[in-house]
Structures are given as structure tokens and as C-alpha cells.
């Protein structure tokens, strides 16, 4: 996989402290890491290591206490809530372990959600929704409700939703955690396919097996990056199987 040398995500000395009346807990401690544009990176670590905090900060869902964070060449360390919402909407696609589809919206409307907040014209939205559902192989299920789909299909809808807005960065948080191994494999295939089209993918997982499929592994333990042995890895071409 070729990608430019520009950094998509650069964190320097980021600390995040959770305070209660009695104690202070460091969730991240002077964490520094970098993800290049077009990379497929897996962030792994045991539970409680700070993976989720990293993901929340990377996705601009949470603020941090010290350090700087550059996303796609722009310093996003101290932005207003509105500006961060805008960046989430335009630059980032989220994929969650529990899919987080909106249960009373059908598939079409679920993929529509981020586009709505971008105030896109109806025709443009439709085009994007259809093409992203096409990509995940669910174009025929547009009018179905999430509850009418299998777990794997739901996660594919979530992926369609994540890519519909054409983001620069996909953040996936244990995307296969609720799926059996066959479905998990399909989801990973999809992520690789998306990465193949140029989108940077950061996969957060505690599953070493899964992490190995990424180009590069970053290991977080106790809120710091342990080390990041860069493993050159080229994904094997796979047969696209959209049918379940």
C-alpha cells in the first residue's frame, strides 16, 4: 500500500486526567503517536489501557488536558464544540462495536444522518447513500429497519454511514467485537477495501489476531504508547463476498 508521508493524525504528549473528589486517574499519559495519510493502523492494548480514551480524543468526542493534536494538518487541540462537531461530521467516520444504528430510522435514513448535519442537497445525499450502501452490499435493504438485519449487516450499514460523508479518517472501535468470526472477516475485508480507496483507517481492538491484519500496530498500555514496531504488511487480495 502506498501512501504519502503527510500525517493524518499527529498527537504529541497528550494527557487526559479523570478527576473525582478523591482521586485523579491518568487515562492517557504524555501519549504521542502519528498516523500517516492512507495508513491502516491498529491500536491495541488490554482493557483499561486507555484505548477508548485515545479513540474518543482522536474522534474529537472528548477533550484532553495537555498536549497537542493535529488532524489532517490542522491543530484541533483547542476548538469549540461546534467546530469539533463540524470536523467529526466532515473528516471522521465512526464504526462502533455495538453498531449504534438509530433503531427507528431505516437503513437509508441511518446512512443519511451525517449528511443531514452537513446540510447537503437531497439529490446529492441520495447519490451518496446509494453508492455507499452499494459498496457494503446492502443497497437492496434500504427500507429495512436495523432490527430486521443480522449483526454483520448492521455493522455494514454502520460502515456505509461512516463512509457516506467521504471522510479522511475512519475510526473503528472493536468493530467485530459483537460478531462471529465469519462476519468479522467480512467486516475486516470491507475496512481494507475502504483503506484501499485511500481512506486512513484506525482500528482500536484488544484482539491481537485482528490487529495483525493492519499495516502497523500501536500498543497502548497504561495510557502510553509502548512501542510501535512497524511491520511491513501487505494485505492479500480477497474475494469480495457481500452475500451472507
Amino acid at each position: 500500500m502506498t501512501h504519502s508521508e503527510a500525517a493524518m493524525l499527529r498527537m504529541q504528549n497528550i494527557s487526559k486526567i479523570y478527576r473525582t473528589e478523591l482521586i485523579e486517574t491518568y487515562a492517557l499519559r504524555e501519549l504521542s503517536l502519528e498516523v500517516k495519510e492512507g495508513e491502516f493502523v491498529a491500536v491495541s492494548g488490554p482493557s483499561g489501557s486507555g484505548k477508548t480514551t485515545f479513540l474518543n480524543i482522536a474522534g474529537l468526542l472528548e477533550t484532553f488536558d495537555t498536549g497537542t493534536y493535529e488532524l489532517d494538518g490542522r491543530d484541533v487541540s483547542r476548538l469549540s464544540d461546534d467546530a469539533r462537531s463540524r470536523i467529526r461530521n466532515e473528516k471522521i467516520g465512526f464504526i462502533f462495536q455495538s453498531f449504534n444504528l438509530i433503531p427507528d430510522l431505516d437503513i437509508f435514513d441511518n446512512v443519511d444522518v451525517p449528511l443531514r448535519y452537513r446540510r447537503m442537497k437531497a439529490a446529492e445525499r441520495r447519490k451518496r447513500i446509494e453508492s455507499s450502501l452499494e459498496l457494503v452490499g446492502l443497497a437492496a435493504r434500504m427500507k429495512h429497519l436495523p432490527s430486521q438485519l443480522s449483526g454483520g449487516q448492521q455493522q455494514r450499514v454502520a460502515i456505509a454511514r461512516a463512509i457516506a460523508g467521504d471522510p479522511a479518517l475512519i475510526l473503528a472501535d472493536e468493530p467485530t467485537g459483537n460478531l462471529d468470526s465469519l462476519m468479522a472477516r467480512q467486516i475486516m475485508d470491507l475496512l481494507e477495501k475502504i483503506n484501499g480507496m485511500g481512506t486512513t483507517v484506525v482500528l482500536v481492538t484488544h484482539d491481537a489476531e485482528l490487529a495483525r491484519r493492519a499495516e502497523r500496530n500501536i500498543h497502548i498500555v497504561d495510557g502510553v504508547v509502548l512501542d510501535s514496531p512497524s511491520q511491513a504488511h501487505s494485505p492479500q487480495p480477497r474475494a469480495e463476498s457481500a452475500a451472507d
Partner: protein
Amino acid sequence: MLGYYTRLAFKSFRRTPGLTALMVGAIAFGIAACIVTLTVHHAMGRNPIWWKNNVLYAVTMDSWDPHQPYDPPHPNRAPGQLTYRDATYLYGSDIPKRKALLSFVTGTLSGAPGQAAPVWTMTRITNAGFFHMFDVPFEYGGPWSAAADQGPEPVIVLSRRENEKLFDGRNSVGHTILWNHLRFRIVGVLNHWDPQPRFDDLTGGGGGNFGRPARAFVPFKWGPALHLFPNGSMSCWAAVNTYRELLGSNCVWILMWVELPTRAQRQRFLDFMNAYWAQQRTMGRFQRPRNNHLWKVSQWLRLHHIVSNSSRLLLRLAFAFLAVCLINTVGILLAKFLRGAPIAGVRRALGATRRQIFAQHLVEVAMLALVGSAFGLLLGLGGLAGVRALYAHSYSAYGKVAHFDLIGIAWALALAALSTLVAGLYPAWRIGRVAPARYLKSQ
């Protein structure tokens, strides 16, 4: 985005139909209670001639007993009516643009074509100025002339109702009719004129503050000319035995209204009253403190406590009820919105701003307010019909004023819808503040 939010609101209602019905019901009941009480209250407190509020004045002077105020609980209040002496003197002034004396006498009307028996009638004795000052609408003809006031000429104006009864509603102007078995020429027939409250006469004569207006009108001087005892309200503080004595007495039985378009005219007329008062005082009258007053219509209505205590009480009760309904709605909305917090969190993660989440939920509240108001309006109209039925046979004014009153209802609706919206601000704000990361991991 409004269309999108509206669609989301509909989906939200469909998800929890029970809670939605509960909230709509609570809002509707609260609004209905406000519509009923506000309509009644508004109708009672209405100024039926608001457009002339600053030019029409009721005239009062305290001619009462030196030892005892007219109204012991309110010792500074003069009688609402004038004595014959004072009324006729003040009427002689040409300072006012228009002026009228008002009293009631009773009598019979007969001699209409095809009329079998005389009918009894409450007759207003007044002056031509009455019709001009109060913008009384005429169906046929018009007021009598100033000369007819002086004569007095035997001219009569009939109410629309009376004309319908006696002439089947035809134009009767020019006909002669027998008023108290004297021949009177009909010069005018009123169009529908039923000001509520009866601001022109709040003395309780002729059916009270919300009673029907007079059925016939003749020039004021016919009362004294025929020695007709006043049949409206009359108060005396010394015995009188004959009509002649009545005219010279301190009994009060005449209302006086004047139209004074400018401040200067108003001041001149007040000066005129004060000069008369001082001159009469030297002759032994007016031994109470000087209390010459010109009352605007709105002041006059307030002075006479037109809005009943029970109406005010029920209005307050309705507001308390609406408050409970709204608190209830806020509680349910808050619970409902917060239960949807994970979804709001997902939307935030997908790029919705706080303001967008807030707006989405506020639209939901607004739709609840709208639907609740619509049901509330229906319930309120039903409630008004109920109040009318309840008071159909009662001395109370409620039956009379509990009518569809556009302004009253508009007030109530606007107030209720707005307060619902305001009540919904807090839950919508709360859900807008939901931290986007908080629920994404939860299952």
C-alpha cells in the same frame, strides 16, 4: 432541517405513543382550563368602547350626606350618579363636544300594526349625544335631533329586538307608536347593540352589569315632563314625597357622560364643575370634601368591580392547573429525552452540533405544544359550552360572557403554547448537553 426534525419528532411520537398521549392530554387540559377562564375573564374585563377610552368620561360629584359617606367601606367614593339639579346644570355647559344624561323609566309600548296587547318596556331616557358618543349603530333612521332634546319632541328610538317584535323587523321609521299611551314618532331603529359589560350604565338598573340594553329610547326631558319616577337605581339620604321634591332633592339617579376630546377641554370642564361646586357649597350643599371626578371608561369599569371575584379565582386556579400540567410535561419530556440520550450521543458523534440536537428536540416540543393546543382548543370550546349550560339559569354573568371570543381564545392559546415551549426548553437543553462519547460504548 425543519422538515427533517419534524419527521424525527413523528418517529419519536410513534415510538412512545402512550407517553405522547399523556403529554398531549396534559397540555390540552391545561390549555382548555386557561381558555375557559381567560375567555370569561377577558370578556368580563373587556372595555366595549376602548377606541374612545380617552375621550369619554363619566361625571361624578359627591353630593351625599355630610355625616356619612355614600359607600361606608370606601369613604372617598362619590355616588356613581348625579342629582337632578346637578345633572341639569352640568348638562347646560357647552364645553363638552357631546354629552348625555341617562336614566331609566318604565312604560308600555302599544299601537303597532297588528299588536294585540301593550308590552312592558324598560325605556332609557337620554339625549341625542348618547347615540353619537357611544357609536351606537342604527339599522334604520338615526338619533333624534338636538332640538328634539329641547322640546322635548315625541320621538322614540327602538332597539332592534323591539322592532322585530312590533314590526317584524321592517323599517318602522316614520311610524307612530304609543309610548305610555302617548303618540311618539319612530326616528330610528338600532342595529344589534349589546355592549358587554354594559359600560354605559353600571348602576345595576336594567339587569345588571351584563344585562340587556334598553329596549326603547326617548329624550331625557320626557321623564321630568311626565313625572316619571326613575325605575333604575336611585339612592336618597333624606325622605322625598313628591316628584317635584325629587327634582330638588339630593337623591342621585342620573348618570352623566361627556365627550372631551382634548386635555384642555377636560380641564375646562373640571374647572367648570369645581366652580359650580364652590358656588353651591356657599349655599349649604356639598358639605363633604370636594370630590369632582371625570372617569375614563376603563377607570369606570375598574371602579365598579366588573370582573367578579370568582372569575379571578378561577383564572388563578387555571394557571395553577396549567403549571402542574406543564411541570408534568417537563418531567415526562426530560425522562423521555434522557432515555434517548444514547441516540443523541450517536448523532453528536456523527457531527451534530449541540444546537442541532437542541433544535431537533425543541421541534418535538413545539409539535407537542401544537397538537396539545389543538386538542386544548377543542376541549376549551367544549368547556365554554359547558359553562354556558351550567350558567344558563343563573344571575351570574358567566352564561352571558362564556362565548367564543376570538381575542380571549387567541390570548389563551398563545400563552399556553408559548409556556409549553418555554417548559420544553429545559429538557431540550439538557439533551443538547449530552457528552457525545458517553453512551457510545454502552449496550
